């Protein structure tokens, strides 16, 4: 399954990229699986996406929970809590 991951604000800087296209193994089905798959890359993903860290995930431009199922060609975004206005 392919999916596009977007990073914003601090995440974009720490991961040194605004976006990446990833091909995921069949074992990655949910948002939680995807986060684990990213953490397995090592630093900086494992620290920045550690369980105690505060960040948000959107799936196809809607706020998503960890148990949501990824769809093929999904747009996933990972970002810090928002601070607009």
């Amino acid at each position, binding site marked *: 399954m392919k999916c596009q991951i977007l990073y914003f*604000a601090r995440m974009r800087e720490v991961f040194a990229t605004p976006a990446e296209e990833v091909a995921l193994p069949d074992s990655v089905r949910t948002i939680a699986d995807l986060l684990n798959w990213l953490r397995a890359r090592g630093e900086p993903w494992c620290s920045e996406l550690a369980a105690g860290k505060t960040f948000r995930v959107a799936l196809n431009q809607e706020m998503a929970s960890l148990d949501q199922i990824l769809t093929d060609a999904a747009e996933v*975004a990972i970002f*810090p*809590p*928002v*601070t*607009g*206005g």
Partner: protein
Amino acid sequence: MIRVQQEDFDVAEELRQMRAANPAIGALVSFVGLVRDLNEGNAISCMMLEHYPGMTEKSLLQIVVAAQQRWPLLAVRVVHRIGPLVPCDQIVLVAVACAHRGDAFAACEFIMDYLKTKAPFWKKEQTPAGSHWVDARETDGRAAARWEN
């Protein structure tokens, strides 16, 4: 109704357009957010506003629709700026027109409270000590949560 833009906005012109030729409007409430020169003790020289194109507009529309379901709104306008801003610059306009002021005040505050906690914008402040991303405030979360009762 909803715009995300780099350029500044003219509040008087926005409000004029909202109330034009609608004699049912009896109350027009607007909120303008501005860049301050001080945030949590840090002197701010410049601020960079980043957003998530696509999701930002969707999210603002969902907030406005939620407000429309709650109050009888006759016109709504949300304008949010992005890019580099300096102290005294306008950041955001939320304006709501209703028949009566109670609904207009409440809806304007509701939209602003949800915008602060749901719309994907992020601020990075430049100070003499360097630049840093602004942390989300818990008070903003509480402000939005009170509408859920």
